[in-house]
């Protein structure tokens, strides 16, 4: 199929929507589809070959923060030309309610249009006020996708209508292999390696997430470390993620503090290495997770996982087959379960292998297949693809 993807935010600034569009585009190309992406970007910006720049994005206040968006006559005419030249079977617009390329593309095109809604927020005046302006564009969309239940609720509340749910994918390949961080034992990332069966340097537990967000449950893990850290004088704890780690660690007894290393916010590359540096990855979340992207990343890296028994994690971990579960918020149970895992190399090895298998269901290739099914559903009439609309249609 010939697919035209519209990304509303600047390509070179990191963000969830941009990452989604990039991963989707690459997964579609890998399965043999023709893909072109239009995005706000300078003409001389370094872009992959499948990306078409629509002009420089302007930072403007939008919906409570500053977003870099592209709008105006220049962008509109570039979008129009891209649609005319693209001869797409289906047009796929991301975040069409943002005042950027998405809404311009809906105006400029007729035919099968799919839209993906990413954002979720509380009832917003700005978007409700905009609803009548967006009406014409929204009514052209033939298939809507929401990336989460929260995004779907946001769509229903602000703009009306419904959407199918296709969650974000994980680029599992990106996490599969990495060297451990310097000074950390690591499992060397290979399931068949003896590194997985022998604890080096007393072993290490890992955590990744916002440090000062109680729902991420770091305080539970630290309390458990008070117990297990005393039983195992060489065990270390690796923490990564934004937030004030010092404040959290101040609650830990001084004699244990030296064995806790907080990396703070890490680069994508170091994040992967962190997953490969620990013997057990702990996800002590107290709730509020719809999916647990961190868990899926750790699974992709083949880390043996110990997670709290919340519904989302239970589902991803297949009722404990692909990762051990402990009662939510129970530090003593966490400590006991972590101890069992550290003492049982065979079980760690098995959990690691099961996790790598289970996470494939969340891989981008699987997600892209569902998205292609949406394309095939809206573009039943092959050949009657996307055409340029009449200027005042």
């Amino acid at each position: 199929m010939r697919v035209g993807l519209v990304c509303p935010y600047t390509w070179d600034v990191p963000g969830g929507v941009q990452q989604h569009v990039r991963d989707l585009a690459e997964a579609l190309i890998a399965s043999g589809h023709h893909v072109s992406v239009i995005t706000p970007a300078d003409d001389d910006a370094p872009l992959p070959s499948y990306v078409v720049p629509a002009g420089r994005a302007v930072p403007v206040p939008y919906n409570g923060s500053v977003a870099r968006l592209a709008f105006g006559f220049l962008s509109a005419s570039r979008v129009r030309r891209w649609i005319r030249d693209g001869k797409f079977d289906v047009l796929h617009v991301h975040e069409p309610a943002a005042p950027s390329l998405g809404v311009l593309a809906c105006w400029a095109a007729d035919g099968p249009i799919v839209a993906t809604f990413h954002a979720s927020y509380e009832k917003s005046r700005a978007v409700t006020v905009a609803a009548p302006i967006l009406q014409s564009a929204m009514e052209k969309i033939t298939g809507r996708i929401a990336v989460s239940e929260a995004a779907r609720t946001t769509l229903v509340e602000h703009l009306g209508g419904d959407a199918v749910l296709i969650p974000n994918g994980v680029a599992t390949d990106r996490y599969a292999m990495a060297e451990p961080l310097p000074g950390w034992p690591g499992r060397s990332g290979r399931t068949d390696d003896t590194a997985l069966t022998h604890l080096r340097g007393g072993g290490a537990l890992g955590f990744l997430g916002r440090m000062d967000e109680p729902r991420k449950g770091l305080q539970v893990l630290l309390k458990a470390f008070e117990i297990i850290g005393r039983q195992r004088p060489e065990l270390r704890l690796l923490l990564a993620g934004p937030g004030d780690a010092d404040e959290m660690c101040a609650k830990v007894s001084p004699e244990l503090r030296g064995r806790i290393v907080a990396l703070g916010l890490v680069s994508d590359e170091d994040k992967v290495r962190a997953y490969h540096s620990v013997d057990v990855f702990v996800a002590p979340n107290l709730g509020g997770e719809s999916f647990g992207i961190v868990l899926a990343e750790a699974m992709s890296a083949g880390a043996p996982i110990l997670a709290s028994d919340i519904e989302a994690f239970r589902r991803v971990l297949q009722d404990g087959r692909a990762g051990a579960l402990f009662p939510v918020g129970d530090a003593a149970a966490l400590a006991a379960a972590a101890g069992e895992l550290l003492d049982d190399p065979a079980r760690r090895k098995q959990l690691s292998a099961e996790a790598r298998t289970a996470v494939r269901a969340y891989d981008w290739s699987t997600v892209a297949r569902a998205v292609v099914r949406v394309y095939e559903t809206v573009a039943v009439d092959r050949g009657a693809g996307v055409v340029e609309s009449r200027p005042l249609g």
Partner: protein
Amino acid sequence: MMPDWLFDILLVAGVLFVVGMYISWRASRLDRLHARVDTARAALDAALVRRAAIALELAASRLLDPATSLLLAAAAHEARTADADGREFAESDLSRALRAVVEQPDFRDNVAQREDGANLLDELESAAQKVAFARRFYNDATATIRTARRKLLVRLLPLAGNATLPEFFEIDDDPPASSR
């Protein structure tokens, strides 16, 4: 200086023109919405027919035991031959039959081992998911046009022409649980 009566006439003509433009815009919007519903309905019908066809193919494939084959064939046949009134029930029954069959212990592994089995399972999974997608899109389009047709102007003037008001299509379309 323009006489008063001429000014009045021009004013009335101007107002009529603007009102006419507005009504024409509303009518073309309705037209567009009807076209969208028609396309969505065609997609839904295509998805349902395809799903029934694959269920029949699976039933006839000799991959299954005879009791399962019979069950699937009967449900698929009912879905294909149901009249407008019974369609929603028959399609829901097919969804339930498919779940009952595919969610049997070790069903997927058994079928996937045989020749063409894995392909058929993939196609079935795809067809079932497309039914769910197509129905959501159709009901979404239906809701939009039903709201638009409730507006006062549309009820007073025959803007919608003879187009029938589309009905929602309500079925149980949960696909069989994925093994992964």
